[in-house]
């Protein structure tokens, strides 16, 4: 059997090598071929990617992070502290062999191990690969959160959102629940579904940002990325803010890693300096340089919309719809949505209908596009397309974020166009809506539902056509290379 191992310890002058020797001995005694990478002070001689590709199992005997761990993705791994490698090397080897035998087809799973050994990527393809990394880690949150919220609506009615978060629904004023442990008693299981779904959703942007940074700068990127993403959420910057935070965090950590530290100092660099500096820098930029202008812009947009009262209804629908589709839950989308809710409160029900139609269209249109032209989408995107149908149907616009985050320049124009069409058509038919959320589940509360449905169909078709056209006409070889790579990495 063929094995590879990595050993490392805090100082990198003793245990690393003792463990390497012990594991090499144990493996040879047991009749296996092994290569060990010692990540110690004498400089790590990286394992030949060929050995990794051929290895049946991987052993980590390490007290500090194994560097470039993603090289071993998909392999059976036995992992322990460095001392176990020294004292019980034979046991670790036996476990690795056992795992290799238990693993189905553990042979050349990834013949071209991730980025380091792959073909050199151009800057565009790299960017796409980073974004795809972030999206791939975010997807489970979208699926879990979105479906939980949809289920809450199905079983609890659209008012479940207000029962948990407070606010008015259909003339009933609900008080927000302040103690989450009491949701089950006060709202019931549907409230619990909604609450958990909402929490999972609140992690979308932090996870997206954190793992974009991870894709760029390895694990050191996660902390500044996640913190930057949390700030993007808190300042209402949405997923575009998350993209900025993730790329920023990755770039800062990459830059900090370039500083050649004295060997004695390099441990402190990794453990304290890089996390401290990168988290602060990203946090400061997001909070002060990004957050404030966004708040100002939101105020300005809100005032501007308010000043538009009396403008042609179809034009207003077009505008609000475009805003809904622009950043999919981000600041511009929020302004449009709140404008709809405000109109609801003042007795104008047409605006809310236009806003909801436009908010349902982006996930629906992109889901349709993945079916019509599946070749233009990555495998991950085709998978998220399936969930996007459901999310769109329930007015969970965020269902489009995985597509938009992976390819903003082609997807955002499509969702803007689709949203604008849906908003305008809904206004043209004069459809009304008396609920602030719920999607298909509040169809009974919609006046002129036929017109509303036509608006959604038209918007969905527009988004789909636009996305397919842009992805076909403006194909980049870079994106395709990155997608092929991402398939291996994900």
């Amino acid at each position, binding site marked *: 059997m063929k094995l590879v191992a990595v050993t490392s*310890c*805090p*100082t*990198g*002058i*003793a*245990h*690393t*090598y*003792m463990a*390497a*020797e*012990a594991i090499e*001995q144990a493996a040879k005694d047991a009749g296996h071929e092994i290569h060990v990478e*010692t990540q*110690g*002070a*004498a*400089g790590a001689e990286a394992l030949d990617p060929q050995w990794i590709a051929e290895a049946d199992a991987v052993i980590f005997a390490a*007290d500090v992070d194994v560097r470039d761990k993603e090289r071993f993705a998909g392999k059976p791994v036995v992992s322990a*502290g460095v*001392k176990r490698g*020294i*004292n019980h090397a034979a046991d670790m080897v036996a476990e690795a062999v056992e795992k290799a035998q238990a693993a189905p087809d553990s042979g050349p799973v990834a013949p071209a191990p991730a980025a380091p050994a792959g073909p050199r990527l151009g800057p565009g393809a790299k960017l796409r690969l980073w974004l795809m990394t972030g999206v791939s880690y975010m997807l489970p949150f979208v699926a879990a959160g979105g479906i939980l919220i949809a289920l809450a609506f199905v079983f609890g009615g659209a008012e479940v959102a207000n029962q948990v978060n407070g606010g008015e629904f259909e003339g009933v004023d609900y008080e927000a629940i302040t103690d989450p442990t009491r949701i089950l008693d006060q709202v019931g299981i549907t409230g619990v579904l909604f609450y958990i779904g909402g929490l999972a959703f609140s992690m979308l942007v932090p996870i997206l940002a954190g793992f974009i940074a991870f894709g760029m700068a390895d694990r050191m990127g996660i902390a500044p990325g996640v913190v930057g993403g949390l700030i993007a959420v808190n300042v209402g910057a949405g997923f575009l803010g998350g993209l900025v935070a993730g790329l920023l965090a990755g770039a800062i950590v990459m830059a900090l890693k370039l500083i050649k530290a*004295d*060997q*004695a100092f390099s441990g402190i660099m990794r453990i304290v300096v890089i996390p401290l500096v990168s988290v602060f820098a990203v946090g400061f930029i997001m909070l002060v340089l990004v957050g404030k202008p966004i708040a100002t812009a939101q105020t300005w947009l809100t005032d501007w919309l308010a000043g538009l009262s009396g403008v042609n209804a179809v034009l207003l629908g077009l505008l609000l719809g475009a805003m809904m589709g622009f950043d999919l839950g981000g600041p511009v989308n929020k302004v449009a949505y709140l404008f709809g809710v405000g109109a609801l409160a003042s007795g104008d029900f047409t605006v809310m209908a236009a806003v909801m139609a436009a908010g349902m269209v982006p996930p629906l249109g992109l889901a349709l596009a993945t079916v019509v032209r599946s070749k233009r989408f990555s495998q991950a995107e085709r998978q998220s397309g399936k969930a996007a149908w459901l999310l769109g149907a329930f007015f969970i616009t965020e269902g489009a974020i995985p597509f938009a985050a992976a390819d903003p320049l082609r997807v955002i124009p499509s969702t803007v166009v689709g949203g604008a069409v849906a908003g305008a058509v809904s206004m043209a038919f004069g459809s009304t809506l008396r609920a602030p959320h719920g999607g298909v589940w509040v169809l009974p509360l919609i006046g002129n539902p036929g017109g509303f449905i036509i608006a959604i169909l038209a918007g969905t078709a527009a988004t789909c056509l636009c996305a397919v056209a842009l992805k076909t006409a403006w194909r980049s070889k870079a994106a395709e290379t990155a997608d092929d790579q991402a398939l291996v990495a994900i």
Partner: protein
Amino acid sequence: MSDLITAELVDLDLTGADRHEATGKLAALLAQAGRVTDVDGFLADVRAREAQMPTGIEGGIGIPHARSAHVTAPSLAFGRSAEGVDFGADDGPADLVFLIAAPAGGASDHMTILASLARKLIHQDFKTALREAPDAAAVAALITNALG
């Protein structure tokens, strides 16, 4: 480059109530040989490392070590202790204590020597030979030859 270890860096009757005392005695040998400039500073670095995770290894071995600015040349002080000194290994006290002193930012050829020493430590015959060596000069020769 001077040898990693010489006879004057070997103490075959190492005693110490605990690992800090034993390490201190070996560090004093390094200081006398001029390989450590500031014993207290060096010991503080060793303790900091020891605090992260005890350096005792099963089979009666303790390897306190540090990379420290107070070290002038990569060095090894060796102590043999009849009653043993606890270095936190699971199977009890260590009778072979290796104090490894590496200069901060040492060049990688120094580190390679220390790496090959560390590799030797897990071999039973090497440990047996150290336990049976008759005198300090024999120990120093044994280690130097092993690294040659």
